[in-house]
């Protein structure tokens, strides 16, 4: 029981379609776990299950030792401590970048407006969005929007950050600026679970890589091992196609 997040026997299905099957995963503090695999292999669904956005069909999810898959657990209490960033940014278009970043700290975490704004300004400036603080998200480029979404998630000071293919909707030249933030957070010790197609990045920052195939974690281990010497034939095929 050393993990911050511990998953065992997790199963999720939509009707007859089994999307996740017998998933076991341990995320220790300061881990950066990269989920790789083809589209439809269940990476996003797994992240959504961890955040209790999906009701699971079996298995147990523990967060800081407590079972959060218990129906009696208030999902909002859990989500307060887990940050999530989506592929499509999902910034609120009617709020300025600053208001996007201070909404949850103020309304959910009860932080004062001035403290929340000071923190958001500091983070936005650090990540190169200083001149866009008062603009509305639609005025920003995709990369800037995704960076703002990352800052929005960081502003709640989460224990774990879940990143769902956050660079998949971006132009190649914008991917770097987003991954830079992730890299910085990883170096600062933030615990993260990310679904990604950026293999080079996964290799660089991950402490653990999980290869998902048809709803199962086929193989997991340190990046050096998975990328250089995978055990499974399916992993080898997948890596040959994407590398």
């Amino acid at each position, binding site marked *: 029981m050393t993990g911050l997040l511990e998953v065992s026997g997790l199963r999720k299905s939509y009707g007859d379609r089994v999307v996740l099957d017998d998933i076991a995963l341990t995320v220790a503090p300061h881990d950066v776990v990269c989920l790789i695999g083809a589209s439809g292999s269940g990476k996003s669904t797994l992240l959504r299950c961890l955040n209790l956005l999906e009701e699971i069909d079996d298995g147990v999810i523990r967060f800081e030792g407590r079972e959060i898959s218990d*129906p009696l657990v208030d999902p909002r209490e859990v989500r307060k401590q887990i940050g999530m960033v989506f592929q*499509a940014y999902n910034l609120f278009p009617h709020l300025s970048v600053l208001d996007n970043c201070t909404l949850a700290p103020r309304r959910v975490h009860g932080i004062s407006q001035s403290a929340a704004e000071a923190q958001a300004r500091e983070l936005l400036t650090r990540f190169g969005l200083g001149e866009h603080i008062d603009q509305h998200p639609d005025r920003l480029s995709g990369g800037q929007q995704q960076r703002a979404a990352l800052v929005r998630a960081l502003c709640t000071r989460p224990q774990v950050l879940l990143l769902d293919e956050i660079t998949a909707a971006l132009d190649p030249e914008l991917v770097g600026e987003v991954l830079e933030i992730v890299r910085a957070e990883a170096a600062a010790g933030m615990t993260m679970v990310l679904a990604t197609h950026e293999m080079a990045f996964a290799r660089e920052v991950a402490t653990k890589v999980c290869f998902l195939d048809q709803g199962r974690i086929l193989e997991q281990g340190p990046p050096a091992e998975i990328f250089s010497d995978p055990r499974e034939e399916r992993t080898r095929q997948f890596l040959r196609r994407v590398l």
Partner: protein
Amino acid sequence: MSTWQPSARELERRQVRRSLRRRSVLIATAVTVAVFAAVAVGLTSSPGWATVRSTFFDAGVARETFPAILDGLWINIKLFLICEVFILVLGLAVALARTARSPWLTPVRVLAVLYVDLFRGVPTVLLVLLLGFGVPALELQGLTNDRYVWAGVALVLSYGAYVAEVFRSGIESIHPSQLNSASALGLSRAQSMRFVVVPQAVRRVAPPLLNDFISLQKDTALVSIVGVFDAVFAARDSTGYLFNYTPYVVVAAMFIAMTIPLARVTDWLGRRALARERAGAL
């Protein structure tokens, strides 16, 4: 995949979920019953309840006046059904005129704006009075002097202006990229509107449109003020010689019975549209 059996923990969890669901059903029932009971007790225990009951809820009077009021209601229903068709056509035409871009259509656009400004601003009841009494007084040749018809025209003009704005908001809510891709395929602007924009817009504004039609169903009662013998007129007639207001309650009940099915359809359409939008969104 049939080899999977739910684990003991999962079965336990399902048990908990079931009991949580049972509890919320129980709460919903208890709260609903309590609120309605409180309203009923509050009404019946008020000091004037006995008088109110005999003047507003007299079963004998209700039975007696029911057929005459129902006869009158047919006028409302016919009026509603006929007006609805004209309103839809007029509303869409005005909305299209307002969104037209061609310089040749500028006068039409100006007219459309004037029409909406004017008829949305005048209270419907005044329109019914002005047209119902005013046009027959002109004694124009070749035009009917039937006040029923002119009251209907007043409703069409008034609701046409509202519905035009509903359609316009729907048309403008369709993303410009849709028009661009239609143009890129070589469609003319008229064709783009006809085949791409309007079908999407209509689907999107169906719930507010139905909302306006529920409102129209009720407002057909306004024709009674120019002496058309509709349900409300019949009810007022009866209250006059029976000295009892029960006919008003009867006619109100009939209007409710008429609007509820449409209201449910509106809800259902709204839910369906929402479910469809949510389906694709993460």
